């Protein structure tokens, strides 16, 4: 039977998808999302669902480089996902978050630690890199 997340935590499935792109691994993505959830569950200073969601994604962005690296791509991830995973940051996150439609552009810039005016160039470069990336 499927568990329904409360409304204010429904973004967790999107967060998991984002974490898969960041880590290139479903297992590490699960660990990353779980550890982030554990940390943020204790943060009583984060008020409001939108704020909580933004802090959650920013934490995933910040913590993902510390997650264990996968040497070999997981067999259950498609080539297209791995293409996204192999993009350089912060363009990878900026493009992914734009597609997820969870945040306006200024908040995406905030999450990836860039100024809003730098995002257009970053997105152009990332899309170009995506078309140029050879299949792994």
């Amino acid at each position, binding site marked *: 039977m499927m568990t329904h997340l409360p409304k204010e935590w429904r973004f967790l499935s999107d967060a998991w*998808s984002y974490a898969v792109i960041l880590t290139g691994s479903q297992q590490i993505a699960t660990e990353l999302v779980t550890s982030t959830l554990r940390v943020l569950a204790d943060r009583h200073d984060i008020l409001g669902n939108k704020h909580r969601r933004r802090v959650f994604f920013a934490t995933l962005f910040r913590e993902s480089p510390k997650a264990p690296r996968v040497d070999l791509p997981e067999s259950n991830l498609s080539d297209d996902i791995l293409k996204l995973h192999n993009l350089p940051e912060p363009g990878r996150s900026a493009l992914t978050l734009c597609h997820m439609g969870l945040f306006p552009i200024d908040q995406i810039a905030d999450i990836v630690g860039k100024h809003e005016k730098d995002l257009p160039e970053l997105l152009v470069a990332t899309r170009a890199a995506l078309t140029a990336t050879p299949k792994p």
Partner: protein
Amino acid sequence: MNVRNARRHLVCYVADPNVAPSPTVLKALKVANESASLRSEYEAQLEIDKKVRSTIKDIRIPEEVLNSLGARVAAIPTRRFNPRDPAMIAVLIGFLLLITVLTWNFLGRPAAFPSDALGIAEEVLTFDERPFEAVNLPAASLEDWFVLKGFDGFDVPPQLEKYKAEDAAILKIDNQPIAVVTVPDQYAQFISFSSKPHEISISPKGSWRYLQLDTENALALREEDGMCFMVIRRGDLAELKSFLEKAPN
């Protein structure tokens, strides 16, 4: 909107069939339709975005992971009152600050020397024109003299009644009449004025407020029945207090 601006907007825009574009994006799309190069760039972007969208959409969270996250969310304790909670500490500090400010307003400010009276004392000490008239009478007997000059309510506290006033005057300070009496043998000036225009109120009735005006002069002020009586005396506060407490022989 020029082509450059339109490009910046379109690069950050991801077309979603379920969401209507914003007016800005609509303008940018219109510019793109009129510019071959921008239109071509945007069409290429649409192709890439279509694939990225499909890729992201295909990432499905496994049910067991969703169940596990759901269980963890359900286990998050609801927030209860905790005095060590930083938010609670912040509220407590704010509350204490509010109490301090209110206490200062209700108790501290009235205890301070009224600024209007301070201004009058400074004006009297620096008054350029000296319209004083010799009187040579005990201070207490000057009430009638002031009434004849048009000033009502000059009343000297009992302990100062017998001091001999050498001269007196009615000064106009901020269009308000101020009765001033000089008592040279005590190095003092007695000042009387209405408390109402200056909104001065001192409680308990008849008590004195003191202030060391500068290195040379000290002030004492009391208010009773709508009239303020102020003493400016050469010397320090201790001398002024002693002067007001002891009655003349």
